[in-house]
């Protein structure tokens, strides 16, 4: 599995009458890990939504997706009254319905053993966040677009998540994630710094 998964050329993002970004180009190939950085308000989230195909009014440019996409935004896309198992089984991202055993393995991987059947609103905020992240252990999509995946996760969770991203990339997938935190992947990661485009 190789080749280009995402090709974006000359992407511009505007919000209202304000131009946030212009001339962003990005090519993501299998096996690559990309971090999008830049100060708040520069349009990291808008760019990622544009790449995922969620924004059409504010985002212009040529965006080509050559692969199914997993998009993880700020919102959890989980129902508070349903258990982690139900939430993952009937996840709105569709594609395929995961088997019960897979879901249990994924929940175990994020440290939620014993909470599989508790409604989400009985779990802590951190645990709910882990349910949202458990999708990454079930994903069949090669290209992941993750918006601030490391926020609201404790130190153990951060390590788990880092490992998961590295594993996915090594298995031939690709990850684009936004983060305003310093680089945690060393020279494994490609950095796209938004301020430079916006000024230049």
């Amino acid at each position, binding site marked *: 599995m190789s080749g280009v998964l995402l090709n974006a050329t000359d992407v511009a993002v505007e919000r209202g009458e304000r131009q946030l970004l212009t001339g962003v180009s990005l090519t993501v190939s299998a096996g690559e890990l990309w971090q999008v950085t830049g100060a708040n308000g520069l349009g990291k989230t808008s760019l990622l939504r544009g790449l*995922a*195909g*969620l*924004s*059409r*009014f*504010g985002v212009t440019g040529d965006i080509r997706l050559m692969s*199914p*996409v997993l*998009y993880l*935004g*700020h*919102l*959890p*896309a*989980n*129902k*508070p*009254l*349903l258990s982690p198992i*139900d939430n993952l*089984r*009937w*996840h*709105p*991202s*569709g*594609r*395929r*319905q995961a088997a019960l055993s897979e879901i249990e393995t994924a929940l175990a991987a994020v440290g939620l053993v014993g909470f599989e059947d508790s*409604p989400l609103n009985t779990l802590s905020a951190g645990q709910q966040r882990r349910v949202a992240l458990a999708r990454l252990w079930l994903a069949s999509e090669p290209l992941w677009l993750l918006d601030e995946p490391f926020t609201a996760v404790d130190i153990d969770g951060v390590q788990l998540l880092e490992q998961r991203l590295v594993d996915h990339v090594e298995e031939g997938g690709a990850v684009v994630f936004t983060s305003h935190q310093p680089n945690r992947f060393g020279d494994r990661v490609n950095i796209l710094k938004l301020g430079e485009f916006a000024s230049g």
Partner: protein
Amino acid sequence: MAERTNTEIVQPLMVFLRGQLMRHLKSGLRRPGEVANPLLFFVMVVTLFPLGLGPDPERLREMAPGILWVVALLSNLTTSHRLFAGDFEDGSLEQLAIAPQPLALSSLAQTLAHWLLSGVTLSLAAPLFGLMLGLPVAAMPTLMFSLLLGSLCLALVGSVGAALTVGIRRGGLLLSLLVIPLYVPVLIFGVSAVSEAIIDGSPARWLALLGAFAAAGLVLIPLAVSAALRISIDA
């Protein structure tokens, strides 16, 4: 070959549709108020009519079809505006929008779940409210059946309004403005069916019209809803 396409394309879609339906139904049933409140609303508003019009049983019986149908319509209006709100607020709509399955299908699942929880329960309970207004027992099957079909029509029409206003703060009243004119044919078909049943006429043609509206709506309205939801996510 055709069989293979069937299992390859249709079956995963049905699995997805069933999954989304289960997700909404289970979520809805865990909050019993969502099922009970529309019924309470219904019985309370029906109570207002004798208080406003006077207790004369003759007059109430004559007005019963109209009253019951208008209240069913209002009840649908009050529940419709939250139809997609939960999925919008928790990000599920974003996921549905980029899912490989058509958004029209997932929005239909949401509308059907809403209909099963509110419309169907309302039509089952309707004879009770009919008795309160002196509706003859012979007209009850028509009342129930017309409400069963009609509430599906109302839920479908309401889903367009809900999809157009889901991103707008305090969109509830706006939804009413958009949807009430579109409700008109459903109201006329439904009331006419029940009125015919009272005078031992033939309600069949009105029920057929409701059925035709529902069938066309099931096919066409999800397309409009999915277009509207994509706009709402983006705005």
